[in-house]
């Protein structure tokens, strides 16, 4: 079709959808991803609301398509270094960090990881699971190419000797390529709010207080425990789990007065899954201010969680959590503002529904593009009727980097951004 092309930055589900939509129109697409594999946060999830669809079953086929699409050039473990030019003619410098493994040779067989002596916390598993110095973030990673984490590698070269494909190459350099694109789509996604800032919840000092993503990894079949939920303090099965809403969100104190939109629904989903994954059942209670089940099928999901799955809802923001030093159980003190009763409940585990903040990636790319951002760090849209255009012509955005949203809205916005970007590329 045309020699012009489109650059998509960030390969979460939104970035993947945008790249696919542009490529399907016959336009060359470069998809840049900072981490070794595409997939973003959605790859960490076990199931998605409100249909409890298996997250991998939705995401992995799209990951396969993106890797195999003739019009898409996938640049993983790479970062954008420089952007110059204007709409219709951007020149972009992209640096691919060294994996110390030859991507063309590596078959992803995994023998090297078996023999690697170094074990470090796996940030893909939110530091609950572990991985080796030579690793893939998760078994279904795309591209299925191993990466050596040089900070922790002791260069014992065991992997080099084991690898039949001789793919390991310790003096691999970082490469830099320059591409010319007609338009850019930002899909840099989000990070989770760091709940250690809330001292009264004890996240970071009490073992059994988990963030939502940590709980998602516990639930996930490809997670560190194969889907079994256990307490981090003593490995026992939690029988009473509390989910705390609005952790960081709707909180002017921590500069996040906005609502993070997805936590109510993922908390309900996790509550149902907890009951599903724990043999002999468990009691789940969600402490909320307002349950925001606004989307399609959400309200029904919310009602079903109470009627058919027996999830308890208590209206009241938890005042504080104290830890019982010997049993590591958590005493949650809250006022049920509907009955005016004050509760001091003991729980085996507490999951904090942390809010969403713009990702580190958004901040880094903005050092290059310096787009105007709102006071929370999200990119600002051009105006009310062009929600996917940024203030720089030819640069579009989709997903949470523009504002907090769930997967369907992110995917929808990705298609919209693809449309706008492809207009510029023809």
């Amino acid at each position, binding site marked *: 079709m045309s020699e012009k092309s489109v650059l998509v930055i960030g390969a979460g589900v939104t970035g993947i959808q945008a790249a696919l939509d542009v490529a399907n129109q016959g336009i060359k697409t470069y998809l840049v991803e900072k981490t070794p594999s595409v997939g973003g946060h959605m790859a960490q999830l076990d199931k998605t609301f409100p249909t409890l669809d298996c997250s991998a079953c939705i995401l992995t086929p799209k990951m396969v398509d993106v890797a195999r699409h003739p019009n898409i050039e996938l640049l993983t473990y790479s970062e954008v270094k420089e952007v110059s030019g204007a709409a219709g003619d951007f020149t972009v410098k992209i640096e691919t960090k060294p994996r110390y493994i030859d991507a063309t040779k590596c078959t992803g067989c995994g023998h090297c990881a078996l023999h690697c002596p170094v074990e470090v916390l796996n940030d893909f598993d939110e530091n609950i699971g572990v991985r080796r110095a030579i690793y893939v973030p998760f078994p279904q990673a795309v591209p299925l190419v191993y990466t050596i984490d040089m900070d922790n590698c002791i260069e014992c070269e065991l992997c080099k000797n084991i690898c039949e494909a001789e793919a390991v190459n310790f003096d691999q350099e970082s490469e830099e390529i320059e591409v010319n694109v007609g338009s850019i789509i930002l899909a840099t996604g989000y990070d989770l709010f760091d709940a250690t800032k809330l001292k009264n919840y004890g996240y970071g000092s009490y073992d059994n207080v988990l963030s939502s993503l940590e709980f998602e990894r516990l639930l996930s079949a490809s997670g560190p425990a194969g889907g079994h939920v256990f307490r981090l303090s003593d490995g026992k099965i939690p029988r009473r789990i509390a989910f705390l809403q609005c952790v960081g969100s709707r909180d002017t104190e921590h500069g996040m007065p906005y*609502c993070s939109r997805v936590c109510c629904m993922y908390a309900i989903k996790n509550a149902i899954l907890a009951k599903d994954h724990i043999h002999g059942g468990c009691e789940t209670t969600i402490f909320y201010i*307002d349950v925001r089940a606004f989307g399609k099928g959400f309200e029904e999901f919310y009602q079903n969680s109470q009627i058919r799955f027996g999830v308890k809802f208590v209206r009241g923001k938890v005042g504080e959590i104290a830890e019982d030093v010997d049993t590591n159980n958590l005493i949650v003190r809250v006022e049920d503002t509907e009955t005016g009763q004050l509760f001091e409940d003991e729980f085996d585990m507490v999951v904090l529904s942390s809010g969403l903040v713009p990702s580190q990636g958004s901040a880094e790319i903005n050092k290059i593009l310096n787009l105007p951002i709102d006071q929370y760090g999200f990119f600002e849209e051009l105006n009310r009727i062009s*929600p996917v255009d940024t203030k720089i012509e030819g640069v579009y955005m989709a997903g949470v980097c523009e504002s907090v949203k769930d997967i369907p809205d992110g*995917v929808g916005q990705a298609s919209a951004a693809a449309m706008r970007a492809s207009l510029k590329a023809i």
Partner: protein
Amino acid sequence: MEEEPRIGVFVCHCGLNIGAVVDAKAVAEYAATLPNVIVSVDNKYTCSDPGQEEIKKAVKNESLNRVIVASCSPRMHEPTFRKAVEEVGLNKYLMEMVNIREHVSWVHMQEKEKATEKAKDLVRMAVMRAALLQALPKKEVTILDRALVIGGGVTGINAALDLANQGFKTYLVEKTPAIGGYMAMLDKTFPTLDCSICILAPMMVDAGNHPNIELLTYSEITKVDGFVGNFKVKVKKKPRYVDMDLCNGCGDCGEVCPVRVPNSFDVNLGKRGAAYVPFPQAVPLKYTIDSENCLNFNYGICQTCQKICPKHAIDFNQAEEEIEIDVGTIVVATGFETYNPAPKREYGYGVYNNVITSIEFERIKNAAGPTHGKVLRPSDGKEPLRVGFIQCVGSRDYRVGHEYCSNVCCMISIKQAVQLKEKHPKAEVYIFAIDIRAFGKGFEEIYRRARDMGVVFIKGRAAEVIEDPKTGNLLVSAEDLYVGKQLEIELDMVVLATALLPRADAKELAQTLNISLGQEGFFLEAHPKLRPVDTFTDGIFLAGASAGPKDVPECVAQGKAAASAAACLMARGKIEIEAITADVDNELCIGCELCTLECPYGAIQMIEELNKAEVIEDVCKGCGTCAAACPQFAIFMKHYTDEQILAQVRAALTDVKERPLIVAFTCNWCSYGGADLAGISRYQYPTNARIIRLMCSGRVDPTFVFEAFKLGADGVLVSGCHIGDCHYATGNYRTETRYIAMKHALKQAGIDPRRLRLEWVSASEGEKFASVIREMVEELEQMPALLPKMERT
């Protein structure tokens, strides 16, 4: 058969979705024992890269010519696995899926052994069918690069503009005389309180005179034929009795018209003449004569407008016109309707004058509205200083039948409350709500601003509104959970935040377009995450509030997304469609013409000289109704041949371990989807049914049913779409007539006719499918076992 079938079976764990209930390893081991099975493995995530890689390696290394994937529903990943096998040179029709997730693990969570046995049976049925599968040539169709957008609201306008800018000719059809939809009626939009028409008007003007957009206002879709890439759409243009080219919208006719009737655009608060434009900024700015109220049409008098029109544009005997347009893709953006709260008598809407709905408030607040922007209360025209907003009227309400949340009403009321407070800082404004759902960008900020301006939020659904006859004021009683007290608040005016409903004609349009409706009555998207803007019918896309209540920014984004999806199709120029069509075997055909009567599309005609039937491949949609009707079994249905289906029936009934056993025929578009939804919603039902997927219930040949009973089936279920919903228009009518005939035949054969059951289950009736199976099993358990005689033959 050219070569010996070499089958590969790949059983998926799907993480824990299948693995937690069905012992995938055991199923794989069992499959290895079946005839022609060369490879049989299980895999944690078959749809992921390693999973697909394993299939491809197996096909290459073991030179397999059949692949069976036992995992989730084909409606989800059939295209994925077909593409995978194609990449290693295997024709995609030689891949067969077995649904052991939505139809097994998700619905038999507590019965692990029986579920594993059921999975083994379903795999056996698939292996038997796979042996008989044949490669089918690729069937491609060209795609016209013209698009049709139905609905001229903000969503439709955005979709049309993006498609037109991409260079595609776009038809924008709007039922009312002007585009703009609900957004044109609004005063301000939340959360930024921008003036709504200021945002919308430029878009309307662009759409109005964009070279690639043909505006068809005051028109409706009557008929849609053809399939993706080649839709033939009939559009009825209702007569305006005004010549569009001559009229310049000067408005003299509107002034001089003696008739004064309520203006539906002003939600019947304002008045308009019989000659009117809905609102001053209407696009196209052309007058329309409303024949119901025009004196000329009712009494043959007046015609003053015709006399004074400077351009002589008025022509009373303008006739209704019907045009036909050919388009490649269709975007449905028909929007929503608001709920009329009169049935909720406790709020007294329609009885007390000062109880109005939010859209009425919006028109009152609008400068172009009936009260020119001054908020006056309907009873005595005074300015209301004490106003209450009642939320969730008609939404989240099981009694009224709308259980869903309408997404936008909280923010509308907060915006309107802030507008009131801006005008009168000391006004008393209350909002009665269960949860305040301020989830979007900038929503919490305006919610905070409302609180800071003194708006009082009361946590509790308002119980009732009664009127104080003397003053016309209203007494709202409610419980405020925040303070745990009962309240009785006296207010000057009450605004009901009414629900957003699917349009009344949504069902009719769904039937014309052959797309299905979701549980709440809005159109059903193919998959909320995988394909959010597609429908199950290729080439037709969904956007905006037609798929579910949403606010303006989301509608605009979905409008552009649907445009992008349509553009992807049209840019490719051609698309591969199902090569499932009928084929007549000339030796067997005796020319009885029975099939030509059955086919709804006239895709099977008689060849005069041979007196044999012949199928027109392009027109045939592959429903199979003709094949089931043919007495000579002369019609050969590609990919759904009689032998393949009978092989599945026989496989289901060999070494049966579970009684009573039910063979269930389901149609791909509705009842199979209903069975999927039963899985997604985790409705549990007994494991006794073995589901066989056909393209339409019309494909169920009576011989299949009798064969099943002959081989010892305890019960047979035939299920399809509701009458009128059939994807192939009349397939299910034939099924109904055959069902009655089969009932009599069974009675004569001495089999209790209750063992055969016909049920209409739509794609949104998961619970119904589960209860039908439950009832059948209970009923069959009471019946005595089938006479052994039947099994001897």
